[in-house]
């Protein structure tokens, strides 16, 4: 690759991390080609902790109330958090990207593994804000070795992820030492991210075993779309200042002790528990199918007779075994599984042998059962191209599933799809749709890539499709597609998906087993308590730079014998580990209650941020009928006895009713339950009936920042004055 032309550069003296923070954040504006360093105050650490908290704080300071996703002032803010980069304990290399989303028109946060988050901090920055719009494609480089930040002219005609990532790892590495490429990490999107709203941010790490870069994804929310809108082909971070103590933690011995304990747990127990080290997250495939939770044909069903074809044992055989597949150093959970030597059968790289990162469970279900396909090789191929084109596999899977159902219902036809026969399970034509999304030329694919929320408008307007039917079956909330679990049998999970800050992603709460199978949440108050605790506990991972998996996808052998059932679900020993690790890195002592308080501050701040952007009230916490229960007779008839009992429990005798009448009656009952759930959860969270945090709550949390209070006071109204 030829030397890239420097468009702008700026020198800096990399700050060394101390107790997990560098105390500096970087702002790069690719529009006016400017650079800025900002100090991190103690107050900012106290209120926002780091990671997603810092991202939201910096974004708040940079946008207006009216900012839309494609306005130049919108930013992609990347931040790891104070614990990001720890190597002694598993799962500590995550970054969180924050931005105003093209899908939801409000803030979104999305996380990825890979080495970018840790290397960014070790290059001197607690966060990077990327703002502005470049005139032509650029590559942003943060090079701590040269002590420079640069904006380079992009040499890439092909901006797809693997092309750009491989070239840049080579470009910034020592030509005489291939493993020197591990000191860089690259963020990319792809061609598909330019024209769809499903653009993901790919985050690389150099795989020293395979001698190649691997890609993890901050998939959700359209962050990659914003990168491409800003004409950013890649963001590179580079530093050789990398060591196990680069965070300069307060107490390395505690980190080492806790890490050794968890490593031992993982090594000895994982094969009996979740098999993350050999199967990765696809260990869930057959489990979800058994419990009627595997989304099949646009969430119509939760189980399918061909599910054995996508059994985790099948994927386990496809994944290369015996390689330490951690996406950050020290992660013995090693769930970043990969398929090596896969020969592509379609698309621009047809015939090429490649390594595919994944598929993970979400992809195996989304670009599998949910579109009616039970062929792991096909899913593997879609996984590769989705990453390469910069497309979120979850939105892609759920979005295409919606298209397939519209097609089968006759709401759209081959005339509308430019000749594609988009029935569930039609592998060839669905694959072709993916390539058209990646190319961004076909007008139907362009509509699809705008997401279900906008597809409903477009299909109604352009094709005369029935809007009411699409509202019932379109699995989206707040503008973003639902991730890959059937939520309709768990009232608590309705909230876990649809009473969230940013839309139905499962990173706030996954309560289906607790609620539906364990029966641990019998009352609405119990469900509300879970919908308070788990979102707030889990938000903490996003503040400090952690992966959630080592929390509860492995558990101590005595977890269940040492604690009550209700307590055991929280995995108390691992929670205590996090409390101790926070102190060991930052030197600040916290309790497990204060850990949740740290999250609750940011959680409520983000809720007010949504309000500031014109969202964040009750009417945006909407739920489609398909998420509440069966919509069509065939869904009912797939589990007649089960659903008849549900109706009886609601006080209705199913005898003499047609299946469709039963569906409609159950929907009515569940819609009323939904409204009760919303009221109960808002009350538990300290929000008013319109879903707005009260001033009292913000004061309790210490988040009574004048501009935050001003937003609440502007929007909080009596019920008869709520805007439609």
């Amino acid at each position, binding site marked *: 690759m030829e030397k890239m032309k420097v468009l702008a550069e700026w020198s800096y003296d990399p700050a060394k991390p101390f107790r997990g923070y560098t105390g500096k954040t970087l702002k790069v504006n690719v529009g006016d080609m400017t650079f800025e360093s900002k100090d991190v105050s103690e107050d900012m650490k106290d209120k926002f902790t780091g990671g997603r908290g810092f991202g939201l704080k910096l974004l708040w300071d940079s946008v207006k109330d009216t900012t839309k996703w494609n306005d130049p002032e919108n930013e992609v803010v990347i931040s790891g958090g104070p614990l990001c980069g720890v190597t002694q304990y598993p799962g500590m290399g995550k970054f969180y990207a924050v931005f105003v989303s093209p899908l939801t028109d409000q803030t979104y946060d999305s996380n990825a593994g890979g080495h970018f988050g840790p290397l960014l901090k070790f290059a001197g920055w607690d966060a990077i804000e990327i703002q502005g719009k470049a005139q032509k494609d650029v590559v942003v480089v943060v090079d701590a070795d040269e002590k420079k930040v640069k904006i380079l002219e992009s040499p890439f005609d092909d901006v797809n992820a693997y092309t750009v990532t491989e070239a840049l790892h080579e470009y910034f590495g020592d030509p005489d030492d291939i493993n020197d490429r591990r000191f860089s990490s690259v963020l990319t999107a792809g061609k598909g991210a330019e024209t769809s709203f499903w653009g993901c941010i790919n985050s690389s790490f150099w795989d020293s075993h395979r001698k190649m870069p691997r890609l993890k994804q901050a998939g959700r929310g359209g962050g990659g779309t914003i990168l491409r809108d800003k004409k950013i082909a890649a963001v590179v971070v580079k530093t050789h200042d990398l060591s196990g103590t680069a965070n300069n933690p307060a107490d390395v011995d505690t980190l080492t002790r806790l890490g050794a304990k968890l490593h031992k747990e993982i090594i000895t127990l994982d094969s*009996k*528990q*979740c*098999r993350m080290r050999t199967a990765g997250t696809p260990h*869930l495939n*057959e*489990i979800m199918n*058994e*419990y009627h939770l595997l989304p099949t044909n646009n969430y119509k069903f939760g189980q399918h007779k061909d599910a054995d074809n996508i059994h985790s044992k099948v994927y386990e055989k496809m994944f290369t075994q015996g390689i330490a597949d951690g996406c950050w150093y020290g992660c013995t959970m090693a769930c970043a599984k990969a398929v090596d030597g896969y020969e592509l059968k379609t698309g621009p790289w047809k015939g090429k042998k490649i390594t595919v990162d994944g598929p993970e469970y979400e992809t195996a279900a989304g670009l599998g059962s949910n579109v009616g396909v039970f062929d792991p090789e096909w899913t593997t191929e879609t996984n590769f191209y989705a990453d390469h084109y910069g497309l979120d596999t979850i939105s892609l899977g759920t979005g295409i599933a919606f298209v397939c159902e519209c097609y089968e219902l006759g709401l759209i036809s081959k005339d509308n799809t430019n000749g594609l026969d988009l029935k569930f399970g039609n592998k060839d034509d669905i694959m072709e749709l993916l390539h058209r999304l990646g190319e961004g030329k076909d007008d139907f694919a362009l509509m699809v890539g705008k997401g279900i929320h906008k597809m409903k408008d477009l299909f109604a307007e352009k094709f005369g499709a029935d809007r009411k039917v699409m509202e019932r079956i379109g699995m989206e909330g707040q503008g973003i597609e639902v*991730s890959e*679990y059937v939520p309709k049998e768990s009232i608590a999970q309705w909230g876990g998906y649809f009473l969230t800050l940013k839309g139905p992603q*499962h*990173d706030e*709460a*996954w*309560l289906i*087993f*607790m609620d539906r*199978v*364990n*029966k*641990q949440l*019998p009352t609405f108050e119990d469900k509300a308590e879970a919908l308070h605790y*788990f979102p707030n506990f*889990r938000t903490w991972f996003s503040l400090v730079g952690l992966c*959630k998996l080592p*929390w*509860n*996808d492995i*558990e101590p*052998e005595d*977890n*269940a*014998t*040492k604690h009550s*059932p209700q307590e*055991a*679900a*929280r*995995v108390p020993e691992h929670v205590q580990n996090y409390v101790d690790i926070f102190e060991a890195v930052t030197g600040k002592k916290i309790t497990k209650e204060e850990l949740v308080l740290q999250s609750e501050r940011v959680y409520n701040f983000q809720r007010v941020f949504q309000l500031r952007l014109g969202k964040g009230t009750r009417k945006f916490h909407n739920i489609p009928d398909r998420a509440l229960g069966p919509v069509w007779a065939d869904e009912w008839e797939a589990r007649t006895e089960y659903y008849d009992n549900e109706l009886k429990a609601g006080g209705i005798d199913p005898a003499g009713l047609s299946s469709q009448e039963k569906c409609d009656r159950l929907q009515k009952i569940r819609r009323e339950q939904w409204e009760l759930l919303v009221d109960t959860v808002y009350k538990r969270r300290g929000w008013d009936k319109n879903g707005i945090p009260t001033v009292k709550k913000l004061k309790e949390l210490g988040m009574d920042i004048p501009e935050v209070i001003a937003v609440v006071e502007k929007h909080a109204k009596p019920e008869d004055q709520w805007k439609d």
Partner: protein
Amino acid sequence: MITVNGEPMEWKREMTVRDIIDAKRYVFPLLAVWIDSVPVPRDDFDITEVPDNANVQIIHMISGG
């Protein structure tokens, strides 16, 4: 008759925890079991018999997807 996660289930002589798990098709590996509030170690599921009238809790430990 026994109760499993709040629902009645017919009791059988020499019924073990494993028998209940299999009958319920609980295939999730991270299960924790309490019989009348007494925890049963995971390694003992196959050999622990469940008495008649027992209140059995079989908890799926995952609390996050």
